[in-house]
């Protein structure tokens, strides 16, 4: 690290001119013969500079190492907790996967059993229509309840009731005539 500042030495002329102008406005000499703070290095200052350098070196040796150890020690519980959480999470995921597999298996088994139960019932039903004799009413012909023949399997069974038109006259169709 160099103490010589490139920003100061590479200062553009416009900045120098601006500084001189401001010096003029403030009533200061435009080009100072001596810097305000120009000081010769006295033995006290030299001693102080060396002391500060020693202090910086001491801090570099001690403080840096201590801080890295402290940082490591502080980070250890967090790292352990994070690791533990990770292991627990993996275990939980494994359990959940197994459970999901068992459920899927059981579901498949149930479906298979339901299909097996439906198979023998569906075969005779499709073979002949189911005829049910409905109880005959007063003066009404016997009605036959027909279970839908050849209905698609997936459709619900329909009960078809044949209706005969009534032979009696409709009371609304008659016209009443007033007698004298």
């Amino acid at each position, binding site marked *: 690290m*160099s103490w010589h500042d490139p920003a100061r030495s590479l200062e553009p002329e416009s900045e120098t001119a601006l500084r001189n102008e401001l010096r003029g406005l*403030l009533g200061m000499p435009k080009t100072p013969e001596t810097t305000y703070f120009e000081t010769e290095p006295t033995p006290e*200052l030299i001693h102080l500079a060396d002391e500060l*350098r020693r202090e*910086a070196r001491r*801090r570099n040796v001690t403080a840096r190492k201590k801080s890295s150890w402290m940082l490591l020690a502080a980070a250890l519980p967090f790292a352990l907790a994070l690791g533990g959480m990770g292991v627990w999470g993996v275990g939980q995921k494994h359990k959940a996967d197994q459970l999901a597999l068992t459920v899927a298996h059981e579901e498949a088994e149930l479906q298979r059993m339901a299909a097996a139960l439906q198979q023998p019932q569906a075969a005779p039903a499709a073979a002949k229509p189911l005829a049910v004799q409905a109880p005959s009413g007063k003066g009404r012909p016997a009605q036959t309840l027909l279970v839908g023949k050849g209905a698609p399997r997936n459709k619900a069974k329909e009960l078809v009731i044949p209706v005969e038109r009534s032979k009696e006259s409709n009371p609304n169709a008659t016209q009443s005539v007033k007698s004298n």
Partner: protein
Amino acid sequence: MEPLKTQTTPFGDSHEFHDIFASLYPRLVSYARRYGATYPEDIAQEAFVILMQRDSPVEHPTAYLYGTVRTLSLTERRPLKNQSISLEAVVEPGKGPDADEDLLSQEVRERMKALSPTFRETLWLFVVEDLSIRQISEILDIPEATVKTRIHRAKAHLRNQLNSSGGLHVLA
């Protein structure tokens, strides 16, 4: 204790370091005093130690030192003022004006005082401390364009001030 005269450090030759320390240290003490630091010498010394402690090099060491002194001075004042310092108080603190007395004439101080603290701070660094615009931008942690704007506004203020008081004739 044996002085480190022959030793070559990351900061260059010991002689070079001593020369630069001798020129910068009083400036930094004065700068800390301007911010009302109770112990300006301690702050300037701490700034040097912080700079020398660094592993990575700094592009502009002077600006870095000034910036550190500024931060440390403001931090030192913070608990005293319950964290609410006006910029006026910062630039004109208890011991602040004393710092200028042996550096600037009464006339210059009066003209500086007429400026707002923001402009005064920038102008001080540019004119009195003789720092470049880039260095000032690093110290105050603001863009270079802002530094330039502040300097030009300070210049306009000074011009107005002189025109109204007829000072321009005096200067001429």
